[in-house]
Each structure stands twice: as C-alpha cells, then as structure tokens.
C-alpha cells in the first residue's frame, strides 16, 4: 500500500497563477494581511515601532539594504504580493505561510507569517542564493 503522511510538506511552493475567480479572493485577503516586522531584519528602526526598535543580525537579510524603511512601504509591498497571487500553497489557519513581492528597485522580498491569528507578517529581502528568488522575479514580471 502506498505510504501517506499526515504532516504537511513545509517546502516553500508558490501557488499557481490566479484566474479571475481567484482574484476577488486575493483582493479581499490583501485587505486583511498586516505587517508586524522583526527588529533582527532592521539596521534602522524606521517607523515600525518595534521593541527593541532594531536589533540587526549580520547573518540575516536586512530590509534596510533593500530600501524598506517604513511600515507603510512594507505593508504596500505585502498587499501587492497578495494581489499578484504570489502566496504560498502552505497555509496556517487560513493565512498563506509566505507571501512574495518585488519592490521598485527590482529586489524580491519574502514575508513569513508570524501571527496566524491576525495574519501578521514580517519580511526580508530574499538572500542572493535563495533558489526561489528568480522564480519570484519571473512571476512578478509576468503577472
């Protein structure tokens, strides 16, 4: 008998390009996601209101290096990623585990769900060697 796991596959996978039926759901979801932030991804505190304001770690990708300094910028990017359908297949409590977006400078970002009750995310520029990076760029440009 073929084995079957009860655990979900945690591997990051981008959902298929949305059709017109899915777009309405994505637009609604975009209005509900929020940006929390993680001080470990920030060299400068910006207006994120985090505690502590910033606590950058050199072994983590930093938002500053990709020009994201305000909560508004981060939130807009998050929402844009949802609208374009760059969300993960994996979900927790109905929220996508990951959301991806590309900023005006062409830098791809990944957001991680940090609060599965409220749909709050924190994000970071995708590391240069991340295998998913060019896929995110291609999908962004084609959508």
């Amino acid at each position, binding site marked *: 008998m*073929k*084995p*079957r*796991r*009860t*655990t*979900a*596959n*945690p*591997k*990051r996978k981008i959902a298929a390009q949305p059709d017109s039926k899915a777009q309405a759901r994505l637009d609604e979801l975009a209005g509900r996601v929020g940006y929390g932030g*993680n*001080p*470990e*991804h920030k060299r400068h505190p910006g207006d994120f209101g985090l505690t502590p304001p910033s*606590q950058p*770690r*050199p*072994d*983590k*990708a*930093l938002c500053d*290096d990709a020009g994201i300094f305000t909560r508004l910028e981060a939130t807009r990017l998050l929402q844009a990623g949802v609208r374009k359908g760059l969300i993960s297949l994996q979900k927790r409590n109905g929220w996508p585990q*990951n959301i991806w977006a590309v900023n005006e400078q062409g830098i791809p970002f*990944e957001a*991680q769900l*940090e609060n599965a009750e409220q749909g709050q995310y924190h994000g*970071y520029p995708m*590391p*240069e*060697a*991340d*295998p*998913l990076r*060019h*896929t995110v760029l291609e999908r962004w440009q084609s959508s």
Partner: protein
Amino acid sequence: MNDAFFLRPDWAPTAHGPAEIRQTSGSLHIRVHNRSLTRVQDDWAQSVRDTVQVASYPLAVWLAASWWRLCWEPAPERTPQTDWCLSHDMHGAGHGFLWPPLRFESDGEMVTLVCTPSRADSHEPIRYLTQCRESIPVSLFMEGVAAFIQTVLARLDVVGVPHTALHLLWQAVTQEQRDPRTASYRRLEALLGFDPDDAPDSIAEPLSQLSKKAGEAAVAELAAACARRRDPALMWADIEQSLGCQGVWGTLAGMPAVPGVDASAPGAPPPWERGRALARATRTALGLGLEPVADRLLCDLLGLTVRDLTEGDAPLQGMPWSLAIRAVGGERAQLLFRSNHYHGRRFEGARWLGDAWSAPVQDRWLPATGTRMARQKRQRAFAAELLAPIAAVQAYLGDDLTDEDRVLEAGDHFGVSPLTIRSQLANHGLIVPETGGGY
C-alpha cells in the same frame, strides 16, 4: 559524534519570533572532513569566524522534509531546476537567514557537499569563504543529519516546546526508514524527483511492480533517468516503449574472471575508480597491452556478430537508456541498443559488460543511462578504460592532448567517440574539463 560530517549548534536564545525559532537560535558550525563550511567574513565585526548566527529549527525542518531526496536523488544531467535546488541547496531552508551556499548531491553511494564562496560583489553583511567539494558515504551523511535533528528536538523538549512540526516530520521519516517497503517507495519517489507523497500513482506504482521483474536496483536506475522528464505521463511512456522493444540476442557472460572491490567495504574507492580497476584487470586477463579492443574481440565477449554490433538496430533510440536484459536461468541476454553510431554502440556494449560483472544477481535489467548515479559512473569509467585506456591514449597522443584532429584520430584508433577521449583526459586531470567534468 561523527567527525567526518557534523552540524553543531550552540544555543543563545533570542527575543523575537515563534518559540521554536527563539529557543533554537545561536551559533551553528558545519564541518566536513575538517573543512569549515560556515567560515564567514563578517563585515560588521571586520573579522572572520567559523560559525554563523542562525536558528537551527528551520534548517532541521528543511533537512527532515528533504531527507529522502538529499540521501538518494542525484544531481540532474543539465542545469538543476528550482524544485531540485529547493530540496538540495541549504538556502531552501528560507526564513530570511543567510545560510551557507551549500549543495548536497547524492549518487546513491556517496553524498557530495559542494560549497561555493559568496560573490565578491555581494552586498550581504557576511560572505562565505569556503570553496570545496567533499564526498562522504550516504551512511555518514544520514548519521550527521540525524544527529543534528535529534539535537534540535532535544533542545525543544528541554525548553518546553514539544509537538512542533519538526517532531511530527521526524517521526514520519524515522517510521518510514524502519519499514523496508516504505523506505523503498520513498527512495523511488526521491529518485523520480518528487517530494514524499507527490509522485503520481501512474508512475510510482508501475515502477514498484516492475522491480519484481527487472530488479529493485535496476528500477532505481530507471527512476533516476525518468526524472529528466518533467511530465509523469512521459516518464512511464519511456518504460512502456522499452517493454515493447526487441533487442538482439547475445550474452554478458563473456567477461573473464577477474578480482573486484566490494563497494560496501569501509573505505572502498569511489565508483569510477572501481570501474577503471575492473577494466584494467579485464584487459590484462584478455592479454591486451596498449592496443585497441578490436570489434571481433568485443563481439566475442558479447556473443554478437560484428554486423549486430556495428550496424544493427537501435530499438531504444531517443530513450534515456540502453538496456541489456538477462534471460532467466541462462547466460543469454537481449541487448537493446540506443545508439545508431559505431562508437556509441561499442561503448554501450562495454558498459553492459562492466555492469553485468557487478550488478546484483536479482537485476535482470541492466540499464545504461546518462545519470550521475554511482552505478552509471562505474559503468562509464569501465567502458572508457576498457576501450581507450588512459595509458594507451597518452601514448597515442604524445604531447598533442588538445589538438582536435589528433583527438578525432585517437577516437577512430580506439573505436570510441572524441568525447570519450576528452573525458578520459579530463577525468585523469590531464586537461581542463569543458563542463563540470567527472563520470
């Protein structure tokens, strides 16, 4: 602790993120054969260190989720696709950490850890410094990874974070490993290039059934070759077509009796060295010096006429393999060539001879494929050394190792393609390989 390969965390909890991230944060040191794979230049501290500050939890999850593919799936023949990279490049662990640029490539016997230094123009605050390509037995790789995952699980239990996704995932992996039938199925899925539970029934089930007729090890080779087809329907189509083909009847029992090397013995040489050693022993037993293997001699070994060998049909043309199928209870074998070319057909015949010598008795099918599985590396090395031994190639070429005309002439002289001549030279370190190199 496994000194050949380990991942060693030192805990220093942080204040942000979910509990499993916070509590497994700290420094991480990864080493293989005394090479530090986490050696970084830290631009902020203006120093070099051998550890990185990450959370071990997401890495442990990635290793557990990718376990079967890491242990068994070979690198593809062409540039790897994103899905393969997400399961074999440590950056697949994600979560915003700057993981080591480390790739794992299995050939079924060994796992090769390929570490690439960061680009000099990288804007990231740390730059990885190590460049290496180190191979360890699959068993030691599994041991090192399992020890790391268990260390992370023990940490989670101690700090009161039980029942995480990692606990469930690792429980699933260990249960699958304990059951031989499940482990065999998971391995087959991995060879086909699928994550657990993702292989469609239309390919996984028929392949499992085929192993009863063709041999489990043989089907593993076919599965790895099938993976080049992205569409599962095309994967099975290749096998179905092969099942319907007729080859020419010959034999694989013509090889002289020669000593070999037990691949499972500790410290056994890599597959290409075993293939070369077998070829040299075979040439000695056949009384060959530096001269080429004549068609007549190769045909005698294969039980074929010269016409069958050099001008016969190629029923598997366009397939990802050629096949020798051993008859039940006898010495005869059906030989299904893939190549229409003289040099290619001699090479295929030689590969089958080498494979027949070392293949499991249960394998009736002997596939010769283009994958980077250990068995295929051994086959290719055997065939190259049997037909164009490096000592003879060097003697023939003299100082003209890269002159294209001389390489073509050498190919004609030894009855192999110019590619085989160039590969022999590159694999013995006599010329720079044109591509990735290796068998």
